């Protein structure tokens, strides 16, 4: 069975009909292809054919009246055409040859030296080369698209880990425009100095780093936890690095929140059992004291001591009730409220302390109301607890308190930041535990209740603190759509 010769449509662009005749005659003797040869003598018609992609290959004469074959090549580049273009000329000119090749011509043939063999070889090489280039471009497009559309930050960097090229996710993660990133090194964005040193050492020693958990600082100062991998690659231009940053900030937050819920759940169960066990004997004490008080004489010293016993029993009862309230999952009724309005009321509640402490308070809200589903009274208490803690933590006279509310499409973020004494790292994880306090007269129930309320609002709470510099509470609420 004989293989059918492939069809190839060829356009010869030449203002000289005789030249077209000679060239096409040579072509017609080619056996390997079924050639369909057309002639075009007007430059504008040739461009139109190029635009409409009517031919598989073009042979264009260097001289085309006022235009040249190079103009046709330029037009093809501009239009993004990939069909092979062969430049024909009457005399050998090395400069034109080089220029034509640089502009993307597939080949350069001298008319006086044309033969059937030469033309066949030219057509075969050109078509094969174009097929390879097309496949290469398709591959490049495919991988470029994987690079660009990746949800993870993918980038290429030099040996100093200075950004060379990066995808959109890198800009989105780090908050910098691509051009801004090109002036930065990956090391500059690592928040922790120890991590920075460690990464530098690993990259220098091993030429790669795999799955390192790092905190990167974004343009607006936010810290994000990421898994970072980088690999060295060598090509003709030398060595460069391919890096990948996978943002796990939300995952870590969720893990932290789950851990906290589990801890609180376990504490709550223990507290409820304990409270039940304490309340029963406490009731017996109270009833007995009441009996004794009835039989005690007025002004008797026994009455004084019984009063003390009764008062302290009541105190124990109140503590148990408060503790139970803190550990019980809150079941609330929610309405659509503006975060700004709730925060204003919380600030108003604390404003006496704020002004008497001479705290420099800066309140900045998003212009548009940030609506959430909230139990206004409870949320007011939650904000108030955080604000009061901040006011108590800052130095009198030089204290600073910043409250911001930023609205986004799916979430609203409340930030309460102070320049107070800060919280040691080892205490941050215990901050919301019931009965954990660093205050002399504190019960350690304020933030436990706050967490309980915020969790009822499906809010995410994040605390960052530096000792002697201050603390920032970042609370993210799901937005309520109208």
């Amino acid at each position, binding site marked *: 069975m004989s293989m059918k010769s492939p069809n190839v449509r060829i356009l010869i662009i030449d203002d000289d009909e005789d030249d077209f005749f000679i060239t096409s005659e040579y072509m017609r003797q080619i056996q390997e292809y079924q050639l369909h040869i057309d002639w075009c003598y007007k430059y504008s018609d040739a461009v139109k054919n190029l635009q409409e992609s009517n031919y598989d290959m073009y042979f264009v004469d260097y001289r085309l009246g006022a235009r040249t074959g190079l103009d046709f090549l330029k037009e093809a580049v501009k239009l993004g055409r990939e069909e092979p273009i062969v430049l024909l000329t009457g005399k050998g000119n090395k400069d034109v040859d080089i220029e034509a090749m640089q502009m993307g011509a597939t080949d350069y043939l001298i008319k006086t030296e044309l033969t059937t063999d030469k033309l066949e070889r030219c057509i075969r090489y050109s078509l094969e080369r174009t097929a390879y280039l097309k496949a290469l471009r398709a591959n490049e497009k495919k991988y470029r698209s994987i690079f660009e559309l990746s949800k993870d930050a993918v980038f290429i960097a030099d040996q100093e880990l200075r950004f060379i090229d990066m995808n959109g996710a890198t800009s989105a993660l780090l908050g910098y425009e691509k051009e801004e990133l090109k002036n930065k090194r990956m090391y500059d964005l690592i928040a922790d100095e120890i991590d920075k040193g460690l990464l530098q050492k690993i990259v220098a020693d091993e030429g790669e780093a795999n799955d390192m958990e790092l905190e990167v600082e974004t343009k607006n100062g936010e810290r994000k936890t990421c898994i970072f991998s980088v690999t060295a690659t060598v090509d003709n231009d030398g060595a460069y690095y391919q890096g990948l940053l996978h943002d796990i900030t939300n995952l870590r937050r969720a893990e932290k929140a789950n851990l906290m819920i589990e801890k609180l759940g376990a504490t709550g169960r223990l507290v409820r059992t304990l409270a039940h066990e304490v309340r029963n004997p406490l009731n017996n004490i109270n009833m007995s004291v009441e009996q004794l008080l009835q039989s005690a004489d007025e002004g008797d010293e026994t009455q004084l001591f019984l009063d003390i016993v009764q008062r302290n029993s009541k105190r124990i009862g109140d503590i148990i009730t408060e503790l139970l309230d803190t550990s019980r999952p809150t079941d609330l009724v929610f309405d659509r409220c503006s975060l700004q309005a709730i925060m*204003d009321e919380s*600030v*108003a509640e604390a*404003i006496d302390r704020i*002004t008497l402490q001479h*705290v*420099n*308070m800066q*309140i900045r809200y998003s212009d548009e109301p940030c609506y959430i589903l909230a139990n206004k009274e409870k949320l007011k208490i939650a904000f108030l607890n955080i604000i009061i803690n901040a006011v108590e933590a800052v130095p009198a006279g030089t204290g600073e308190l910043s409250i911001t509310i930023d609205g986004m499409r799916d979430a609203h973020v409340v930030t309460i930041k102070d320049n107070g004494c800060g919280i040691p790292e080892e205490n941050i994880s215990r901050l919301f535990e019931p009965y954990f306090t660093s205050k002399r007269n504190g019960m350690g129930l304020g933030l436990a209740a706050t967490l309980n309320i915020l969790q009822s609002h499906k809010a995410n709470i994040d605390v960052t603190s530096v000792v002697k510099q201050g603390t920032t509470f970042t609370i993210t609420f799901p937005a309520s759509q109208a």
Partner: protein
Amino acid sequence: MSSRTLVSRKGLSATVKQEPASDNTVSLYEIVREAIQQAQSNRKDLMLVFRCEALPSISCNAMLIKDLLHRLIDLILAEGQADSRLFLYINSIGGADQEPLTLEFHTNIKAGPEWCEHNGPAIQTCLQLASDLEAGLLVNEIKNTGCIFSLSFPVK
């Protein structure tokens, strides 16, 4: 009958004849509440965090004290004086038997020289009204924080 020149916040002045008024008992809390409500209804864009403690009633010229507190609150709530959302906290000190009463207006506006220059006529009017009530008006700037307007009434 005496006459008095009033200067508005925009610098317009008018001389008014004033009947010698007798003193009445007026609730300072009610006047402040009314002044705030009026300011909020006049300026829908007014973003204010406001808190007022329970203020006592005093015996004085009702018209003058009302005028003074309305003007003072207008002065404090004037636009563009604070870097952040405006707040105003009003409390009172003293006022018991034979003890002078002071109303304190804590706010985060920056009442520096530029503010004084800009609000000169309105400040003058407030001072004049305070003087007519035999009261004293002081502004203390608190570094980085804002300022406290103190309105002190004499013991009667």
